[in-house]
């Protein structure tokens, strides 16, 4: 199978989306005849290549981070331009990867619903939407903390590379829990505040300005 992997993260090659995509592709490559090409939509030259290659691919994996509860504007604008291009009769199978910083799966559910509809609008088969929350900072976490999640993405890639399909139940499992216990969430948020945000603010010497409201109405 020939797979075109599109990274729709505005952060480009050093993004969490690309990190997960690469893991998926490691699994995909387990089938020796499979071929994959990865393009970063944040790079203008890659974007042009993606527009040219999209309709001629056998399968396309489009990954992105959740931005304001849906796809980044960069991805939406890419899709809008793509839809104006001539479409061949034989169209690619589409697969989506959506990751969010917040841990609950409830945040990514609406855009997944949209993506399934989008695939139909483009005249493509949707092989599934890989969703996962709690991904912010995954690239800097210790290996033992992320091993499990990376393994799941690799397995997903292997299954898709072998069968061209993904099981809806496995996708649901990957998405994780819709909601978490309030106490657990508050603990995680507090930890996040102290161990990450406040540390970064202090390192940038902006901790005292963290609550600034420069656009407040007079």
């Amino acid at each position, binding site marked *: 199978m020939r797979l075109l992997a599109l990274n729709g*993260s*505005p*952060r480009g090659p050093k*993004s969490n989306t690309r990190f997960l995509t690469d893991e998926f592709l490691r699994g995909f490559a387990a089938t020796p005849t499979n071929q994959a090409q990865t393009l970063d939509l*944040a790079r203008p030259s890659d974007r042009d290549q993606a527009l040219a290659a999209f309709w001629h691919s056998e399968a396309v994996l489009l990954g992105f*981070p959740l*931005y*304001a*509860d*849906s*796809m*980044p*504007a*960069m*991805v*939406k*604008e*890419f*899709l*809008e331009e793509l*839809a104006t291009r001539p479409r061949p009769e034989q169209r690619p199978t589409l697969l989506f990867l959506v990751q969010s910083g*917040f*841990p*609950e799966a*409830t*945040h990514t559910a*609406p*855009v997944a*619903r*949209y993506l399934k*509809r*989008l695939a139909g*609008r*483009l005249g493509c088969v949707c092989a599934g939407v890989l969703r996962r929350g709690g991904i912010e900072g995954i690239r800097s976490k210790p290996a033992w903390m992320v091993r499990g999640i990376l393994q799941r993405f690799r397995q997903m890639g292997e299954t898709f590379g072998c069968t061209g399909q993904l099981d809806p139940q496995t996708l649901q499992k990957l998405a994780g829990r819709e*909601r978490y216990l*309030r106490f657990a*969430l*508050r603990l*995680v*948020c507090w930890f*996040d*505040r102290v161990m990450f*945000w406040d540390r*970064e*603010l202090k390192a*940038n010497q*902006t901790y005292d*300005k*963290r*609550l*600034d*409201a*420069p*656009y*407040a*109405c007079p």
Partner: protein
Amino acid sequence: MNALLLNGNPNPPDPRFDAYLQDLSRALTEQGHGVNTLELRSMDLRQCSGCFDCWLKTPGDCATRDQHGQLLRAYLAADVAVLASPLVLGFSSGLLKRSIEKLLPILLPYVDASSGECRHFPRYSKVPRLAVLYQEESDTADEDRAVTREIWSRMARNANSSLIACLSTAMATREVAHAIARA
């Protein structure tokens, strides 16, 4: 009431949509409301790059040199912000979405889980309520309307606001103006 109309009609613009928004602006003004319209396609608004500088390096402000300041000032001065665009591929335009992503500095980096679901704490005590206005495509179905409403409802919640209405340009402008003002 002060209404902000964010016109997300992309390039090349659909003249019917611009004309509808002009009528809506007139209807709101006739009803005694203040109206500020931002034509997003004429503004220099760069993509949000997810750098988090607006939280960590220049708290409350985007580090990009574009017209985000004008957008943020207008947004925070409004009582209701109308997110307006034609539907493109079953959802609001990428141009409108780009402007919404530039609102990230109105939030703090800290996450509030007190409701049992994560969202960022607000930076400002007052933010406008939101209304969505769309022009349907020839093949718009109930599922598209439902998904559009669901996504914008979640966005409103996570922006510490609320979605007061999801309206179509198939409605008369006076009716839309009333719906916006009522909420």
